[in-house]
């Protein structure tokens, strides 16, 4: 501590293994008329060895320089990371401003047992400071030390307070089953079947158009799978700690105070099994600013209550469990207000299930017909509201409200309420918004 240290010597390779692959590919492309036997015989042998070793030496020199010039230092107050030989970059983060440290492992790093630390600093800078790469154990230890410093404690050698495991890892079987029961997968599989039948019967033209779509589904499926694989969550003293990943593993901490809104959704087929999925909008957590953070890929009601107990411990009602159950299923028990029967013509399936409840701490909204989702937006997280009414809704004296929060795309969506109810709620909520 408190002196300059170097990162793991294999780090440049993890950053730049693509360069090696790229060089090999370029070489291969330019000489693909030569067979393997020719490459290693006669005068070609000298060329092959020469080019190969020259390229290797070049890459190694760059890697060595890159490694040499990448250093980090942890003082009592700051974390410094210096990198670059020609274009030097010096970054630092104030430790008391560090809000969280994620541990990420891209595929190659994982194969080598290395990990990257990502510092989330609340000083207004948009970019995340990265320290890559360290041995995994060292990364964990460093994370614990810095977090301890951030809380103004004396550095400790071992992991400080062990997080309490909240639930077991989501079993791979259940995860796969849940993935295959989602609409995009069903559509993708059907599409693949159609594709297969068509290509067997010899209709080639149509097939060409479907392939990109199928690739799109594949990409979506892989992304979801990579995000949800080996998912586990544990409770820390400030919030949730989640770890997940198939090829790239990642650990993220999500302080409960940064949750802006929560969405619990249940795709059509999942409802038969009583499975739910929980996502949140959070500030300063996750890669992209505008994407929702997955906190439970698939789980039953029990798992949902556990996660909700940490993310939103105060639901603002007395019988939290019962209200939560009503919120994510259907019905108007416990004071939920649903769409009036007039809405039937506009949403023949969903009108019965659209409802909202304003509690002491948040607004709960539910909508959807076959697949349903419920959003929980705490009153003090609402950034703005819209009251809206289309021409058909106006005829039936209906109106809708949207509640916007920061950090992602989840919103409170109150669809086709009675006009009177909606206006009153809108006015009351606007007053509530400015109360202090």
């Amino acid at each position, binding site marked *: 501590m408190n002196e300059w240290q170097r990162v793991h010597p294999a780090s440049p390779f993890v950053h730049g293994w693509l360069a090696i692959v790229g060089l090999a590919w370029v070489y291969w492309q330019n000489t693909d008329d030569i067979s393997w036997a020719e490459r290693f015989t006669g005068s070609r042998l000298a060329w092959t060895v020469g080019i190969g070793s020259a390229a290797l030496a070049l890459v190694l020199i760059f890697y060595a320089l890159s490694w040499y010039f990448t250093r980090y230092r942890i003082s009592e107050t700051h974390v410094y990371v210096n990198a670059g030989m020609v274009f030097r970059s010096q970054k630092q983060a104030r430790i008391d401003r560090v809000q969280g440290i994620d541990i990420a492992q891209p595929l190659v790093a994982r194969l080598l047992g290395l990990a990257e630390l990502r510092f989330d600093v609340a000083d207004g800078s948009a970019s995340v400071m990265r320290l890559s790469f360290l041995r995994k154990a060292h990364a964990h230890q460093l994370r614990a030390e810095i977090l301890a410093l951030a809380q103004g404690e004396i550095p400790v050698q071992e992991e400080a307070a062990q997080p309490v495991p909240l639930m077991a890892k989501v079993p791979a079987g259940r995860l796969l089953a849940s993935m295959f029961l989602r609409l995009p997968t069903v559509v993708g599989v059907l599409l693949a079947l159609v594709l297969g039948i068509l290509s067997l019967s010899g209709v080639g033209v149509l097939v060409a158009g479907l392939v990109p779509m199928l690739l799109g589904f594949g990409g979506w499926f892989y992304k979801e799978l990579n995000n949800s694989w080996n998912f586990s969550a544990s409770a820390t003293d400030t919030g949730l700690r989640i770890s997940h990943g198939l090829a790239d593993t990642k650990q993220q901490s999500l302080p409960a105070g940064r949750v802006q809104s929560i969405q619990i959704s249940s795709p059509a087929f999942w409802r038969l099994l009583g499975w739910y999925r929980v996502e949140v909008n959070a500030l300063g957590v996750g890669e992209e600013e505008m994407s929702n953070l997955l906190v439970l890929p698939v789980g039953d009601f029990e798992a949902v209550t556990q996660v909700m107990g940490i993310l939103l411990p105060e639901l603002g009602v007395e019988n939290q469990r019962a209200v939560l159950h009503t919120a994510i299923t259907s019905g108007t028990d416990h004071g939920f207000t649903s769409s009036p029967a007039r809405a039937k013509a506009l949403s023949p399936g969903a009108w019965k299930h659209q409802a909202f409840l304003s509690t002491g701490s948040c607004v709960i909204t539910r909508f959807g017909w076959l697949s349903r989702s419920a959003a929980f937006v705490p009153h003090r997280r609402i950034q*703005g509201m819209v009251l809206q009414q289309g021409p058909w809704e106006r005829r039936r004296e209906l109106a809708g409200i949207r509640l916007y929060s920061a950090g992602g795309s989840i*919103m409170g969506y109150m669809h086709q309420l009675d*006009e009177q109810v909606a206006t009153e709620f809108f006015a009351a909520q606007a007053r509530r918004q400015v109360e202090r």
Partner: protein
Amino acid sequence: MKIPMESSPNNFTAVDPDYFKVKLATWLIQTGSYLLVALLPLILRLFGLPVPWWLVILPPVLVLGLALPILRMLRRQVRALGYREREEDLLVRSGVLWRKQLVIPYGRMQYVEVTSGPLERRYGLCKLTLNTAAGSATAVIPGLREDTGQALRERLVAAGEANLL
């Protein structure tokens, strides 16, 4: 009209009527350029290419069929635009068929922008945009007189500082 959105229309400050001219000019430019594309088959036919008649007639009819109803709504759309400064929040309403009313507490405001394009500048107008931490909760008030827009911005910024939550 007994619509919740307009239950108190008099409390809203309407935008400048000149904004209709900006909308009209925008409509003319848009419709004109679409029409130009839609008339392409006719031009080709005039040059003696064998373009079928339906291809000559259908596109311009479609363009006009979509654009003329919009033209009819333009004036009402401009009249529907309005804002209202309340003690601690800003209300913005818009829309004729699809009515919207947005409310943003001053304390949630992150920054206020006043912009004006070439068309708006010609009529001495500007557009005020109020941003919050949530991308969707953005209030846009077009068609303000330039001095009104600046004054409103000053007031909003002052109110935002006073109401930091």
